[in-house]
């Protein structure tokens, strides 16, 4: 995998991204804006399940309000993230934080879909304890994704010898 990353890093596309100085900060800034949209959408869905946001409306209303924003922002994040990865594949592939983040994104997306199934059709204020617990866990997963994303740049500091990279 790292060898693949190394080769990708020498490709013309990767070199073009690397040598366009304004591209990386621009994509990172867009990525952060999208984090805002995704995180707040997840937060609102979770808070509705916890009965702390728009408890007077059925769950589905809140889901329909935020889900499209969440999916679109996730798509933009995937696109900007992909270009950033192609730009510096070795840095990402050698970071344990990166792989944990990718795994948690999968968990995060699937568990949000799970929440929708569990809460669909619910209209009351207080949902069953299990659903509320699951919603809290989902929120923690998305917070962890944000922390892991920032940790990619500090992989060796965070993970020590567990990091696949070694410091220069």
């Amino acid at each position: 995998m790292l060898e693949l990353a190394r080769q990708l890093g020498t490709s013309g596309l990767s070199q073009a991204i690397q040598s366009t100085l304004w591209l990386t900060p621009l994509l990172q800034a867009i990525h952060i804006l999208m984090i805002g949209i995704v995180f707040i959408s997840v937060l609102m869905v979770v808070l509705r399940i916890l009965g702390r946001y728009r408890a007077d409306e059925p769950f589905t209303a809140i889901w329909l309000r935020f889900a499209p924003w969440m999916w679109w922002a996730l798509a933009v994040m995937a696109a900007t993230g992909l270009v950033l990865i192609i730009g510096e594949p070795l840095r990402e592939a050698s970071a344990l934080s990166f792989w944990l983040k990718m795994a948690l994104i999968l968990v995060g997306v699937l568990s949000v879909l799970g929440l929708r199934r569990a809460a669909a059709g619910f209209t009351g204020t207080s949902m069953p304890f299990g659903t509320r617990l699951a919603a809290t866990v989902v929120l923690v997963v998305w917070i962890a994704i944000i922390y892991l994303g920032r940790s990619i740049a500090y992989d060796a500091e965070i993970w020590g010898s567990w990091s696949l990279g070694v410091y220069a």
Partner: protein
Amino acid sequence: MNTQTRSASRRIVAAIAALAAVPAVVVAHHSFSLYNNEVTKVFTGVVTRVNPDANHLQIFFAPMNAERTNVERGPDGKPIIWAVEMAGSAQAATQGVSVNNFPAGTIFSVGMHPLRSGELAGAREGNLFKCPAKKPPTAGKHCDAVEGNTKHGEGALAPAKP
């Protein structure tokens, strides 16, 4: 986590790394995009200042001439100053790179990927060697060839790439 599971987990991580079939990857903290990683410049120079930046510590230095008798100077006779950036101050300190350890006048050698912008600065590549106080290497050599040098990090001085 107990020591046994910890070492077992470590073995799993090591196994994944082995599957990847490469030696440890040397990564800079920085986004690479700022630097031209196709080029490695190797300098022996005299420290002028250390900025213990929490994100990327920088050593400012005057590169020495090939004879190692003086520093390179501009048309005005003043030393030309370069900067080398590395990991944050705390991470650099674990390798003994700090304000106190690299006072002005310290002679050291380091490789770096220069900035694409053309500014006289770069991201550290490979190991960093410090000469004993006031003992520059002989002509054309670097601090790793001076007896009594100290090593700041793992491995060798990066080879120069044009």
